[in-house]
Every structure is written in structure tokens, then in C-alpha cells.
């Protein structure tokens, strides 16, 4: 193990102002990833009366070990970047509620009502939904049973447990290949299993994994079962062309088959695609006036930190224009 840095997440110590249930906010931002935090900075600089409701700060960025494409840093650790984002946002003294997953947003006349899992209720003239995405499960037998006992979704967290072990990585995109790289670093024997034909990861990542010579590639195969007793012991895969099943002895499986948008709470107020992404136009507007979307939870192409941050900025400026045009501010 490399010795991790000693960097403080100062945001957990600052007493942020409480979000008020009695107030009508100009703007409520839902989420705590780069899209939401960038929206908060832009909203605060327009001196909007705004608030933020989120489950946590950081989103997917907190799960990333090294980020090599955030402008200004050749490489930055996800945790350090999140710390810098949160400190920047907290400096504006924006009222925030953390640990508050939003369960529903409804329209009431010109206003929006936001409900959280712990029955908090907040009212705002505009909303920015920036709730990002979560890991997509395989939905196969054994996946839930062996969670944390062989089944894993976070390579940065769990790869070290598979030192010298045999591991399946389900998926064929960048996340799957990055996970394979993390596992190779700890000396695991990796089999990549992709449900579709070929591999979708960036060329340079594929090259890196192939050059190792230590990875087995199995495309056109889908995972159908995870077996084990105390711990996962095998993964059963099925050839999608022949229908033949085969068992791969493995002590672990990392599931990297993409992400699902966290948009369930918004289904009554905004149109979503079949996969659940909120439909947005190039100004982050949705099907409902006053309700905006930003980042990975939306249809914006390319899910990246810099894009999510840009979208958050755009959504806040759009919300500001909307408030002005309606004479709300």
C-alpha cells in the first residue's frame, strides 16, 4: 500500500447554515457532485437565495484514485479534488442539507416542492437536478448474497483484497479496463467478461491492459450466476451466440457494466429517456419550465467531471435567466 496523504476534508467541520423548510428559495440544487457544486458556485455569485440538498459531497469523483483530465492538474487524487470543490462551495455559506436523499419533487403552481427521505420539505422557484449516477447491478443470482464477500463495485476501495486471487471483471468500457489495471497492480489474475461483442474502452487503456499479457478476454458472454459459500468461488458465464455456459473459478467479481441515473425522484416533473436520463436541451432546460438538469443524470453526451462541472454552471445561469424573465428576482 502506498501511504495515502493526510488531507483534511474541512467541509465536515464547518457548521453549514441549515436549510429552512419555511423559506421559498430562488434555487434549490439537488446533488453533491461536480455538477451540483459548480451550479452552487455560479448561483451564489449571482447572489441567488439558494440551497443545496444532497446525500453526500463528492459523488463519483470520491471513488476515483487518479484523475488525469481535470484541467490544471496533470494528475489529482479524487479525494483531494472533492476537498477543494467542497471548500470552494462552503466559502459561500450556502445553506445545505447533507444525508438528505431527495425522494420526490412536485410542481405546485409556479413553485416546486422537494421531499427528502427523512420527510424534510423544501420549496423553491427553480430546481437543478444534479444527482448523477450509481453503479448498475447485474441482477443475477448471487450478486446480493456475496456483496462484500467477493462481489465488488469500487476498485479503489476493494482491489487490494484480491491480491494474488482470480477475479472476473464484468464490463467492456473504461471503468472495466481501469478496474482491470487496479487488479493487475495487486497481482490478481483477471478475466474480462463483456456481454456484447468487442471492447468499448479507450484504445490507450485497452493497449495498457493487453500489454500486461495477464488478462483473459471473453466478449459476447454474459454473467448468469455467482456461486460460493462463505465467499464467492465461481462465476458462471453464458456464450450469447451458442448459449453454452461455462464456470470460471474466481474469488471475486467486479461489476463495471455502466451506471444508472439517479432520476427516480424527478419522474413526475421531467421527461426522461428509456434508460432514465433526464432530457435536457443545450441550456440544461427540461420538459418543465423552471426545472433544470445537469451532469451525468441528464442526456448530455460524455460523462466526465469537466463536463458535469460545465453543465452545472450552465444550469445555474439558465435558472438565473429564467428567474429574471419571470420577474421572480
Amino acid at each position: 500500500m502506498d501511504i495515502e496523504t493526510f488531507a483534511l476534508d474541512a467541509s465536515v467541520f464547518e457548521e453549514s447554515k441549515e436549510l429552512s423548510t419555511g423559506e421559498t428559495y430562488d434555487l434549490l440544487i439537488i446533488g453533491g457532485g461536480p455538477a451540483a457544486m459548480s451550479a452552487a458556485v455560479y448561483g451564489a455569485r449571482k447572489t441567488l437565495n439558494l440551497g443545496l440538498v444532497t446525500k453526500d459531497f463528492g459523488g463519483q469523483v470520491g471513488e476515483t484514485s487518479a484523475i488525469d483530465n481535470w484541467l490544471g492538474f496533470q494528475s489529482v487524487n479524487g479525494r483531494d479534488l472533492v476537498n477543494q470543490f467542497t471548500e470552494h462551495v462552503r466559502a459561500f455559506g450556502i445553506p445545505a442539507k447533507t444525508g438528505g436523499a431527495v425522494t420526490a419533487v412536485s410542481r405546485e403552481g409556479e413553485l416546486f416542492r422537494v421531499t427528502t427521505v427523512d420527510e424534510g420539505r423544501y420549496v423553491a422557484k427553480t430546481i437543478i437536478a444534479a444527482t448523477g449516477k450509481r453503479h448498475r447491478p447485474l441482477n443475477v443470482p448471487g450478486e446480493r448474497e456475496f456483496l462484500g464477500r467477493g462481489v465488488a463495485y469500487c476498485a479503489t476501495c476493494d482491489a487490494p483484497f484480491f491480491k494474488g486471487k482470480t477475479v472476473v471483471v464484468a464490463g467492456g468500457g473504461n471503468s472495466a479496463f481501469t478496474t482491470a489495471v487496479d487488479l493487475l497492480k495487486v497481482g490478481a489474475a483477471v478475466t474480462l467478461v463483456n456481454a456484447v461483442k468487442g471492447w468499448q474502452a479507450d484504445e490507450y487503456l485497452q493497449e495498457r491492459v493487453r500489454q500486461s499479457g495477464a488478462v483473459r478476454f471473453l466478449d459476447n458472454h454474459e454473467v448468469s450466476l455467482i456461486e460460493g459459500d462463505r465467499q464467492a468461488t465461481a462465476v458462471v458465464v453464458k456464450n450469447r451466440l451458442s448459449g453454452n455456459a461455462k464456470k470460471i473459478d474466481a474469488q471475486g467479481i467486479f461489476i463495471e457494466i455502466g451506471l444508472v441515473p439517479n432520476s427516480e425522484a424527478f419522474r413526475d416533473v421531467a421527461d426522461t429517456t428509456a434508460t432514465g436520463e433526464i432530457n435536457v436541451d443545450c441550456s440544461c432546460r427540461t420538459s418543465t419550465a423552471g426545472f433544470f438538469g445537469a451532469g451525468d443524470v441528464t442526456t448530455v453526451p460524455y460523462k466526465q467531471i469537466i463536463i458535469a462541472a460545465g453543465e452545472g454552471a450552465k444550469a445555474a445561469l439558465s435558472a438565473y435567466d429564467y428567474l429574471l424573465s419571470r420577474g421572480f428576482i
Partner: protein
Amino acid sequence: MAVLKDVEKEKLRQLFQGLMEPVTLLLFTQETECQFCETTRTMLEEVTALSDKLSLTIRDFVADTNEAERYGVDKIPATVILGAKDYGIRFFGIPSGYEFTVLIQDILGISKGVPGLSEETLTMISAIGTPAHLQVFISPACPYCPSAARMVHQFAMASDHVRGDVVESSEYPHLTVKYNVSGVPHTVINEDHSIVGVLPEKDFAREILKVLGVKWEGADVSVK
């Protein structure tokens, strides 16, 4: 070699202005220091130098067996955080990465004498009447771990019956084998019950009560 950056020291200095009661950090290491013992010691020396309310006591795990036994320290590096009393708050392994913030939260919480849990959770914890040993296995790079780590320390502070250990998994591979840990955070309650992932504090309290056989309305969260 210094391990804390100046910018972090400055943030800590400001935070430590809020310290109230003195806090002592007790580090168990040994003469020939273990892999992460030296860095842990340097970091704790630097942290405790930032406020006169903080002090560091260093003990030799091999020579001071009585002390080690007294604090239930069976592996090193071990950091015990002491306030008005020994609340049962322990770090085994280096508190780095995401856990560094937990260490600082613990120091502030102990100094202020408040566990920082909701009234409802505190009421549930007050029903604990027999020993509960909570060991949460973490990795310093895991973003989900600090909330589980902090929670076992808050619970330890709230009850004399609870001991809260944060265990850095990679430093004690034999324990990850023993407790069948292959994903973090993974909390072991009294040796043979496990929770994988993070639970909200009320659910966590309910879970502990269930393991201890204390009846509590709504104690229905499943244990693996």
C-alpha cells in the same frame, strides 16, 4: 521528514481553536518500528504540536505489555484517543487518506464531550448493557469508509459498553481472512456478526441491539 503539508497544518490550527477539554493520543509502537508505525508517529507528533490542548504519549508495545493489555491493544500501530476517560476509541493501522479526517473529528468530539449523534440514536444506545466490540475494516482510499469509521467511534463515545476499533485492512491481512473481509467498509460486531457497507446511525444502533439480544421496536434490519 514532515508528513503534514503547511496548508493542512493551518486548517488544523484553526479547527483546534475550538478545542475545549484536553485530549491525549496514546500511540503504541515498538523500538524497531513496524511498516506504518513511524509515519503514524510523525503524523501524530505533528498534529498534537498544533495545540496545547493536545498531547501525545508513546508506548512500546513490546516493553509496556501491561499498558497494551489495559487498553486492549493487540496489534500496532495502535492509536488510542483519550479524553476525560478512555471511551474505547481506537485506530489500528495508520489513520491516513479518508480516515485522517475521522481522527480529527474524533479529537474535536472528545474535546467537546459530545458524540454528535441524534437523540433517538442516543436513546437506543443507552439500552446497550453488555459489551459490544465493533471493528470496522476500512481502506484509506474508500470514500464510503469514513462515515462507518466515525460512527463506531461515536457509538463508543456514547456508551461505556461499546469499544470502537477502526482497522486499516491492508496492514492486518490475517484479520481480513479471519473475518472474511473482501470489501469495505465491513463492520464486525462481537466477532461473529458482520455488516457490509454503511447504515444510517439509527439502523446501525438497531442492528447492534439485535446482535446483543436487546428487544427494540422495529429491530428488523437483516444481519449477514
